[in-house]
């Protein structure tokens, strides 16, 4: 189970296997600036500071270019962490929308 750490704020959450970074943060009661959730609009891009992500679904070249990927840009609605990762939001802050969801994030029914 990869750990995700988010800057600013140094917030850490556990990600499920095959869960995108976006899904993991929202499941843990957090919100940030997102758009289509489907890899098309690019607004949920962040900087990947440490760790490795994969894209297990197609992402359009004009949304996330190869050089962006090399330089550490991560499209959070499609990126799945395969190691512990640290990301930095771009001109945005993580907002906690539910402390209950954060508290009980480990309790799941599937």
């Amino acid at each position, binding site marked *: 189970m990869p750990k995700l750490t988010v800057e600013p704020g140094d917030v850490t959450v556990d990600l499920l296997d095959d869960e995108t970074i976006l899904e993991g943060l929202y499941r843990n009661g957090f919100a940030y*600036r*997102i*758009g*289509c*959730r*489907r*890899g*098309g*609009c690019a*607004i949920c891009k962040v900087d990947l500071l440490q760790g490795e992500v994969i894209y297990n*679904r*197609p*992402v*359009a*070249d*004009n*949304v996330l270019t190869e050089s962006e990927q090399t330089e550490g840009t991560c499209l959070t609605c499609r990126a799945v962490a395969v190691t512990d990762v640290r990301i930095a939001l771009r001109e945005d802050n993580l907002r906690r929308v539910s402390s209950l969801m954060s508290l009980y994030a480990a309790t799941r029914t599937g």
Partner: protein
Amino acid sequence: MAVMRMGYMHVRVTDLAEAKDHYANTVGLYQTLEQDGRVYYKGWDEWDHHSVVIEEGGVGYVKCGFKCEKPEDVSDIETKAIAYGYPVVRMVAGENPEVGDGIRVTLPTGHQIEFYSQMTAWGLEVGTHNPDAFPRHMVGIGAPRLDHALLWVDDVAGIEKFFMDCVGMWATERVQTSLDDDAHTIATWLTIGESNHDIALLEAPENKIHHFAFEMRGWNDILHAADIFSMDDVPIDIGPTRHGITRGTTIYFFDPAGNRNETFSGGYRCFRDRPTVVWTPDQLGKAIFYHSRELNDRFLTVAT
């Protein structure tokens, strides 16, 4: 009247299988052709061969087409568009499957707009002989027809003038910097017939598509559509709600590639002598989302 309506919208999708599931099973369109990596659809209340085309690879706008009543209307737009200074090429029948001769105009933004007067007839799903009110086994939200699109452009006034002077449209509503005559136009809603808009233009730094919309049969169907979106895990941008602009009821949602779609219903009938409604930027929240009266952080920043 030269142009009758927006006839088709053609967009790219990153995953054809997922997009087919969305447009057929969630939006409820009828597939009429699959050829060369493109899939063609029509709504149940449309009679022409197709109104939506999806193409695998990438995301976003490819082109749209407006259907004219007669071939002479296409020629008339060709003459005017050339005089206006926009590049125009002729397209021959079959270049778009099942579409007749026409022209393709390239706006300075790069958006391609096609005009044609013939498309293979397919027929209404309810037929035209003693028809029922809707298809008995509608799928998903059962979108009846394509309605309009909103394009992101960097020169609203210039492109608005093209649609008015060359295509014969007029503005039902505008967002502009002030109520003065020399105000800068930020957005415009253009119509050719009696609907609120057939195409809308919004000032933006990039030339993209903001959304394309399907006309629904009323608020009940809008609410029902939102229920279906939850069942099918379709990301909703906003809604169900009402627009201040056009008074239409709406849901904005995203297809599996991230292209924004809309279900739209209502609005008022527009006659050509109706005065243009004007909104100012301080009221933009209410203009766009009449109930929440504030913009979310996606609506004006996300397009494909």
